[in-house]
């Protein structure tokens, strides 16, 4: 029974809870037990408060007995530690916020609480979401449940590892340049980065505001849809939140594949991709074709400029956003200092890690007098060229398919010496957020070393439902998403 519960999807768990086959307290206990057993080696969670989670589960169980049950009533969930929560500290993977207890909940957290979800804890992440491997976390790297010597990807690496190791049935993530999709790919789970403006960012620590977006991570596309039903929607407290009617993502999962036009960018099937990745993705393409989908060769000629453009825009916006951490209103403050300027400088020197300092300095440089036009403005112009490539491609296809990342999970320490080598991991995930487009990653096979490969689908603005539908149909015919990592057996 416990094994079945631990490996169940949200849909199955909701059914079991509604049929009173299991209580939320029992379910929460089995996940907490698993976290206790696996978090030592995997380091997927930064904060867990068992008493709080169980109290919450008892409350939801009691409400159900009175006939009150939200859409996710009793379902345990984990939050990336970038979502502000009143009950648990919100560290953002940084020493700067190591003890920070938010006075309010993020909009997404409020929505999940209202739906009856039970928080299991806060997941490890790259510091301030800056990284592709979880190695920049102040709390140490999270590890990949498929091979503990390897990274789980990043920045939502803890969320991905937690879902892959079945320490949580689902988790939240945020994605600025691939931080949901790349770790999902590297750990064999599913992750969706919604359209910019689809999910409120109120209460999410800001990194790069023209790109940041929150999304779900879970075992199946159907589970992502259930979470999107709760997460997405207009929130006046986020000025980038888009006012549009609430959508039922679960209602449109049975997408008709016959006649669906799938764009295959030649740039996403070229050099620099590991053969194991290419093979798995090409196999998925053949499956879609066998279902009557039409493959359309397309070109995204400016997509290769995504990485350089991103590494101007994201650091520029980060350097501005992170100026709020000055040791005055919240967060770390240095113990010793000579004067106010010294207090700022020492506080920030102590509070931020190397990757964050480096990005703040890059951002300061590209925004500084005399360089603004050559870097930031130029990056914004090339960004428009990249967005225009997608717009042109979407005149000929309904969605775009390719690998999520050029390689499977790499070993801890393999890329830490060279930031550029690390950044190139995000070559296929960066273009979608630059254009504000929704994109998801689902497992599509394994390489020769037994490491999971991710398939990326990118859609038009606000066409999450089509992406989820295509992925759901694929998952009805395959079982890659149901495989359990060998280093976290049931």
């Amino acid at each position, binding site marked *: 029974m416990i094994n079945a519960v631990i490996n169940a999807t949200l849909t199955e768990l909701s059914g079991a809870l509604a049929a009173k086959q299991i209580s939320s307290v029992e379910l929460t206990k089995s996940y907490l037990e698993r976290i206790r057993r696996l978090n030592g080696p995997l380091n997927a969670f930064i904060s867990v408060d068992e008493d709080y989670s169980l109290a919450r589960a008892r409350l939801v169980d009691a409400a159900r007995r009175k006939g009150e049950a939200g859409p996710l009533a009793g379902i345990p969930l984990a939050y990336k530690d970038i979502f502000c929560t009143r009950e648990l500290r919100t560290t953002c993977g940084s020493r700067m916020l190591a003890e920070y207890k938010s*006075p309010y909940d993020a909009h997404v957290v409020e929505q999940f609480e209202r739906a009856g979800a039970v928080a299991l804890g806060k997941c490890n992440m790259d510091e301030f979401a800056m990284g592709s491997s979880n190695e920049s976390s102040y709390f140490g790297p999270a590890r990949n449940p498929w091979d503990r010597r390897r990274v789980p990807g990043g920045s939502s690496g803890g969320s991905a590892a937690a879902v892959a190791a079945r320490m949580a049935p689902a988790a939240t993530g945020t994605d600025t340049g691939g931080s949901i999709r790349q770790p999902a790919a590297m750990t064999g789970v599913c992750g969706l980065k919604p*359209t*910019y*403006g689809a999910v409120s960012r109120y209460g999410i620590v800001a990194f790069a505001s*023209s*790109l940041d977006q929150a999304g779900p991570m879970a075992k199946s596309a159907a589970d992502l849809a259930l979470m999107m039903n709760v997460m997405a929607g207009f929130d*006046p407290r986020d*000025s980038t939140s*888009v*006012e549009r009617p609430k959508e039922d993502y679960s209602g449109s999962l049975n997408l008709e594949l016959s006649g669906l036009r799938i764009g295959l960018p030649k740039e996403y099937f070229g050099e620099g991709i590991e053969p194991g990745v290419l093979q798995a993705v090409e196999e998925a393409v053949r499956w879609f074709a066998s279902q009557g989908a039409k493959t359309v060769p397309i070109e995204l000629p400016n997509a290769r*400029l995504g*990485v*350089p*453009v991103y*590494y*101007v825009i994201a650091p520029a916006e980060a*350097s501005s956003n992170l*100026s709020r951490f000055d*040791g*005055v*209103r*919240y*967060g*770390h*403050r240095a113990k010793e*200092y000579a*004067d*106010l*300027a*010294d207090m*700022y*400088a*020492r506080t*920030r*020197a102590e509070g*931020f890690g*190397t990757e964050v*300092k*480096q990005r*703040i*300095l*890059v951002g*300061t*440089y590209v925004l*500084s007098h005399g360089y603004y036009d*050559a*870097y930031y*403005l*130029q990056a*914004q*112009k*090339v960004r*428009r*060229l990249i967005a225009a490539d997608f*717009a042109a491609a979407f005149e000929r296809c309904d969605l775009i398919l390719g690998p999520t990342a050029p390689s499977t999970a790499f070993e801890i320490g393999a890329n830490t010496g060279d*930031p*550029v080598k690390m*950044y190139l991991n995000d070559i296929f995930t960066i273009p979608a*957020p630059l254009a504000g487009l929704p994109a998801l990653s689902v497992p599509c096979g394994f390489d020769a070393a037994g490491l999971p490969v991710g398939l990326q689908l990118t859609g038009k*603005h606000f066409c999450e439902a089509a992406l989820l539908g295509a992925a759901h149909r694929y998952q009805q015919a395959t079982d890659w998403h149901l495989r359990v990592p060998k280093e976290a057996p049931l």
Partner: protein
Amino acid sequence: MSLSDDQIRRLARLARISLRPEESAALAERLNRVLALVEEMRAVDTTGIEPMSHALDPHFPGGQRLRPDEVTESDRRRDYQSVAPALEEGLYLVPKVLE
């Protein structure tokens, strides 16, 4: 374009981050790798292209939504100040700036 140690220290001053000498050398190397990566983008001809500052600007040519200029927040000063490193009588304490 390669940044010198001096330039790194100047940027760190602007960004209000104090750097140890050995740290600035290591950061200089990493920063220069990033700037070399970024070079490729600088060479692109963008004559006549409007900068894209918002991910959905094709959908919202008028810019982002503005809300009516009305008070929407309640007074939560006590809550928000509860996380401050140093406070006195509802004021944030910082080192003396004026003699």
